[in-house]
């Protein structure tokens, strides 16, 4: 491990030609992201290469280099992370070589549906979810999602009994490979249809939401 340098960032030999310097920066940034078990925020990387380096161009170059590889550099949960491409999910699952903790949690169809609905409608209560699905969403489903740290407790609803609402967590973004909640598929179309407005009649038109849920891409394995 390198000794902590006095300089807050690392300048790999400023006398090197531009090309070599750029390569050194690229290697350094990719190594840090590769070694990290969690997504690395942009600021950590910016501190690593210093103000002279155009970090966005650097990351674009790294992504370009990985174009032929089965993994990519993805922006998830507010940071950069190496992710295998979705096409290889089956192979990884069949090999079974990823440990239980590192794997994305296996969700049942109902759990998938519930966590997705919470992501779109948050903060949302269990009663509202039950109304949306026209079927009771059980406490057990919510409890399992909470245990997996995919959803958390939000503000209480100002209604009789002060029911708890649910919101998605940081880990939800990481597991589903989303950079932020705005990256949810078709969120703009749903908004324009008025399906996500607070107090909107969500129950009468569940079809539009179903379409979106069906179109959701597969989870990628970390």
């Amino acid at each position, binding site marked *: 491990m390198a000794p902590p340098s006095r300089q807050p960032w690392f300048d790999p030999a400023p006398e090197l030609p531009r090309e070599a310097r750029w390569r050194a920066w690229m290697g350094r940034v990719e190594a840090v992201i590769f070694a990290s078990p969690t997504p690395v925020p942009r*600021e950590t990387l910016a*501190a690593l290469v210093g103000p002279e380096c155009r970090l966005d161009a650097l990351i674009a170059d790294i992504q370009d280099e990985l174009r032929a590889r089965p993994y990519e550099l993805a922006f998830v949960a507010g940071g950069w992370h190496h992710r295998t491409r979705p096409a290889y999910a089956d192979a990884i699952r069949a090999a079974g070589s990823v440990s239980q903790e590192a794997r994305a949690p296996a969700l049942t169809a109902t759990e998938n549906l519930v966590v997705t609905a919470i992501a779109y409608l948050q903060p949302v209560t269990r009663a509202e979810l039950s109304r949306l699905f026209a079927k009771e969403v059980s406490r057990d489903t919510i409890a399992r999602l909470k245990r997996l740290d995919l959803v958390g407790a939000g*503000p209480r609803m100002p209604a009789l009994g002060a029911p708890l609402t649910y919101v998605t967590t940081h880990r939800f973004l990481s597991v589903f490979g989303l950079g932020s909640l705005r990256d949810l598929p078709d969120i703009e179309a749903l908004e324009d249809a008025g399906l996500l407005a607070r107090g909107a009649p969500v129950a009468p038109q569940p079809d539009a939401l179903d379409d979106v849920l069906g179109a959701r891409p597969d989870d990628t394995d970390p």
Partner: protein
Amino acid sequence: MIRSPAARSPAPDWAMVDRDLPPAIAAQPGLWQPLPGWARRHGDDAGPSSEAAFAAGAALLALDQIVRAEPPWLGALRQRQALAAAAVSSRLMRLPADEAALRDAHHLTRAGDDPGPSGRLHRAWRGLAARPARAEAAAGLAQALGLGASAGAELGPGLASGGPVARAAASAARAAAAVGPAQALEGEIFGLMLADLVLSETLGWPVPVPLLATTILGPALTGRPQRPRPRPGDPGWAAACQAAYADAAGLAHQRALALARRAARLCALAGTLRSKGGAAGLRALLADDAIAARALAELGGLGSERAARRFLERLVALGAARELTGRPLFRLYGL
């Protein structure tokens, strides 16, 4: 014409209310005059920059005099501005939350729970309006927006030149540019926060008043359909900031005068209330946008939650405070 309560009753007995509240200011709503018409910006466009700069200067001066006098209700003004700014930033992030929903999320989230995506934005704005206006606050704001603490590390007002508004605009552009394209919207909101922070520091205000975000997306600047909203770093950004600050400071001044009137009414009635711990209740009402009975009871002084609610309902019945939600349960009270 409505006579001010201060004129009807003799000066409130401040010894009974609180020794910390300066009576002369709270009891004199006529101390500040509304902005004259010539100090307003006209037209629905950013307009020529000299006119916008002139209007911004005039409105900021008027607001500056209020901020410097530190009236006891300044906390309410700051938090109302923070709420308005949070509502605009939620719209920018396309989160479905209006001011009422943001207020509910803030007051109904228990300690340790997550207020949700728009609630976190509101929390960040409330943090801006509650902490001293120093460059170090930028790191905390960046973290609250999920940008990592170091995003605001090297940003300070010393780096830009020009007038206060020009410096604020330049800081916003620099802050937004320091954030990558993957989080461009968060960066934009961070820029809006930093502009207010830098403006407050330049003007010598102890604590920032959120201004820029409340009007930068307003119809006056983005009214036409084909027109993109002003973004930090665009060629017209400095001019848009001037126009937005002129509008925002004017509106904040208007809001401040309304709050001054209501605070005077509340303080005039305070002498007639004999609730134990009423002074603490008044101070809490003057210091925040809204307060729930439970939170007031937790502050201490008034006793149980029930006693706090009775105290607040009494103020509402007397017309000295308002109930802000209009629902029978989970009521929130404010000026």
